[in-house]
């Protein structure tokens, strides 16, 4: 079986869903003949010339038009060229798109997707991790896959979902991650975590590109005889609370690892949930490893210092194990 990149998994999910369901269409900047800034829609316009819409540089219009079309029964996929630009459409997404069901009983099944994350020296405006800014505005689901398998399966689930979904891709993974994928159609359910590695001494709860940082730390710690469990959340809203609590109950020590800044990050919510519901299981404080509370800086030494990495996770783990 040939291997499929994380990027090709996304392209496949979109074109397979467009073939399966004529309500699905793609709208965004440079998504047509050019195939998107990263090539996620390469070739799609040839197969579906009427269902790929190039737009002006207008994120509000992209999100708004996609939402309007969704109210009429379409299934739009709205691309943000970089997920950072979703901030331009934040008002539309949180005030209009996300409220359609709760306020008016209307279905607004759009997928908003785009490349997030740092590690590629994109600088402060091409490195955003936006999950926390949408977590506190109810009505939009948030998924953030770290594997090619999950990217394809979760994107299909997002397109088929009857509510809006923010699908956060990690640009660092686009061409670095390759996996053999099933030939048959599959979906990965939204809201279900994946226990990526089984262990008994310590749990790392993480998602997206940070699962590989967790892997590296776990490999290093294994050499010291420490058995690490890695829970890949995959979905941020709704999140798999059961999987989090189950793992904490087993290992009694937990690190929450994410690439977004620490303060007010998604990890704060998961830490609070663990403190509320699994306090008795904890043998050490809940530890968070996250980016510094700064805009993501450009220069490689600055960026490397600001973002989480293997050594920061190992240091946190040692602290917990020694507690």
């Amino acid at each position, binding site marked *: 079986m040939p291997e499929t990149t994380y990027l090709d998994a996304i392209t496949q999910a979109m074109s397979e869903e467009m073939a399966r369901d004529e309500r699905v*269409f793609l709208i965004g900047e440079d998504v047509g003949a050019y195939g998107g800034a990263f090539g996620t829609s390469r070739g799609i316009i040839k197969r579906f010339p*009427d*269902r790929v*819409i190039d*737009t*002006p540089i*207008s*994120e*509000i*219009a992209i*999100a*708004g*038009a*996609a*939402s*309007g*079309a*969704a*109210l*009429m*029964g*379409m299934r*739009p996929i709205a691309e943000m060229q970089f997920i950072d630009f979703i901030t331009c459409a934040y*008002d*539309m997404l949180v*005030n*209009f798109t996300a*409220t359609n*069901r*709760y*306020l*008016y*009983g*209307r*279905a607004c099944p759009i997928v908003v997707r785009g490349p997030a994350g740092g590690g590629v020296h994109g600088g402060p405006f091409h490195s955003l991790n936006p999950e926390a800014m949408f977590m506190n505005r*109810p*009505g939009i*689901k948030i998924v953030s896959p770290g594997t090619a398998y999950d990217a394809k399966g979760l994107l299909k689930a997002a397109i088929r979902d*009857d*509510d809006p979904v923010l699908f956060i891709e990690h640009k660092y993974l686009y061409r670095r991650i390759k996996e053999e994928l099933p030939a048959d159609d599959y979906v990965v359910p939204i809201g279900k975590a994946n226990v990526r590695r089984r262990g008994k001494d310590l749990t790392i709860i993480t998602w997206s590109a940070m699962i590989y940082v967790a892997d590296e730390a776990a490999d290093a710690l294994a050499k010291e005889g420490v058995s690490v469990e890695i829970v890949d959340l995959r979905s941020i809203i709704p999140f798999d609370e059961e999987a989090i609590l189950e793992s904490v109950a087993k290992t009694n020590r937990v690190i929450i690892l994410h690439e977004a800044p620490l303060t007010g990050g998604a990890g704060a919510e998961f830490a609070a949930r663990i403190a509320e519901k699994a306090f008795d299981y904890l043998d050490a404080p809940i530890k968070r490893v996250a980016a510094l509370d700064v805009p993501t800086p450009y220069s490689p030494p600055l960026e490397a210092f600001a973002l989480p990495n293997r050594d920061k996770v190992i240091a946190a783990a040692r602290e917990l194990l020694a507690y």
Partner: protein
Amino acid sequence: MESHGLTKEDLLDIAYYLRLTRTLEERLVALFRQAKVIGGLYRSLGQEGESVAAAYALEYEKGDVVQPLIRNLGSILVAGAKPADIIKQYMAKGDSPTRGRELNIHFGNPATDGFIGQISMLGDMIPVMAGIALAGRMQKKNLVTLAFIGDGGSSTGAFWEGLNFATVQRLPMVVVVENNAYAYSTPTSKQTAAKTLADKAVGVGCEGETIDGNDVLAVYGATRRAVERARAGGGVTLLEVLTFRLKGHAEHDNQSYVPQEIIDEWRGKDPIERYERTLIDEGVAAEADFEAIQKRVRREVDAATDEAEKAPMPRGEDAAKGLFAGDGYWNA
């Protein structure tokens, strides 16, 4: 009188919606003073003409969709909104269209109702209405969308992005900019230095036209032409309608920032009186016709008020339901 192909029946139908709009709003004022309206109350006094006339130019059986702002109550009545539902919305009742979750005329499903209410972030509905028009085209429906925006709302980025996108795509869409002279307390001269709001069409390349917003037949005629052009593939039109807000932004606002002589001047240009006078002068209708219409309107508004007053408030615990499709709240 240029009747733009409207029959006598149509002309009296428009008169009915004009009276219904004003009477329903007067009823809402009474309910507001009795503290039965929970939130704010926003009047369209003096602007009913363009709301009704523009919306009357659509063909709802073809799937056309109108999107009102807060001062376009008349437009959704034309599209088929029920007065009882509107009163229930204002009274925050549990069986209102939004089940007590949203206010006033913020409701409606474009796929089934022919109208969709605004959200409060002005300008946001322009891209949404472009998307509805886009879906209509992709679904091979021959529908047209009509979006209302105000002089103030046309200063927003969302307005420009939506109008530009719709124009580039040649979407079947009409945007009516109500220039009612004030956005809350801010005069139009502090919104834009453009000579007219129709000039905003030039920047995006759509059609633009300014019309007398208190001339019901002129608004109908211009909107009808724009709708027909849109339906035929001719793209977007921006229609500026010149009118005046005879009340404050909402009932709490005494409009102290507007010179009295301007208010007095516009009181003399009432669009409903003017329309009815024209029909009488042209021999299309008699006073008795409007008296009969008023009787019917009063009866309907009375019945709607009774229904709304009897309706239950929502149950507090329902606030936890219906965020996502999964719990089935909206199917029940």
